[in-house]
């Protein structure tokens, strides 16, 4: 007669398998993201300020302030969401305007984006 494993052993074995699966899952995801770090552009989020977006996309803050019709001020660290609230505009619309301004700046101003960000 084959001995039945104890419930404690089964739980340990299950935990062991789950831990291995989690290690591979997170390890794979980390390596995949790390491989794309160099050439993926930073997505614009509602918590970012305009100077922060300008820095992440290697463009001038004044250009972005102008694109969303806000008085250019490098010390203006309000988030995009706060600006949207103040201007009574949807956040998505401001993000779209900023993205368009960045794309236009990329097209018209060579050297605004580093070579690492232009790779395929």
């Amino acid at each position, binding site marked *: 007669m084959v001995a039945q494993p104890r419930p404690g052993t089964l739980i340990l*074995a299950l*935990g062991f398998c789950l831990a291995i699966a989690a*290690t591979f899952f997170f390890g794979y995801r980390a390596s995949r993201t790390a491989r794309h770090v160099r050439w993926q552009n930073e*997505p614009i*989020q*509602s918590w*970012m300020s305009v100077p922060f977006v300008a*820095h992440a996309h290697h463009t001038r803050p004044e250009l972005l302030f102008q694109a969303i019709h806000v008085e250019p001020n490098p010390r203006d*660290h309000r988030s995009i969401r706060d600006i949207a609230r103040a201007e009574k505009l949807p956040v998505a619309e401001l993000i779209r305007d900023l993205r368009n301004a960045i794309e236009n700046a990329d097209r018209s101003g060579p050297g605004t984006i580093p070579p690492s960000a232009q790779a395929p």
Partner: protein
Amino acid sequence: MLNQLLAALTQYGSPALFAVVAIAAIGVPVPVTLLLIVTGSLAAQGAMDLWASIAIATAGSVSGDQIGFAVGRWGGKALIARLSWLLGDAEHLKKLDAKAKSWGGAGVFFSRWLVTPLGPWINLASGAADYSWLRFTLWDFLGESLGAALFIWLGHVFSDRVQQIGAVLGDLGWAILGILATAFLGWRLFFGRE
């Protein structure tokens, strides 16, 4: 909530940094690694001072850890007494206590920067296990300074890639935790039978 915390950090700088890392150290689930990376990016942009940010992040984290330790010291024992039927007899509890003390320094140090999700639990456990406050504070300070310096420096270097670096480090942290769990459970499963 993450968006609001990051917006507060971008707008208010150091006071927001101190408050958020202290709250995270107490045990509120906040992605503090991403927050420190964003701080490094803000330092690279000239909006915050690099060294002051490291000092403030360390001070905030150590303050939060001290609260967790105090809760464990004065509230943890009562909880353990209540759960003693679940944890085992007095002899077993004594063994667990001794183990917690012997691993204390390394546990505190590595949970500050390498396996950060364990940090708040180690604070509570150290307090409850009567681990020396002075040793706890010393290892805590060393680990938190290293963690703050490491993540803020990474944010400073990769200042235009903060979200991606945050995602990589977040996943790496969980992968390391998975390796530790695999090693511990494997050891219990294959060699730990009594």
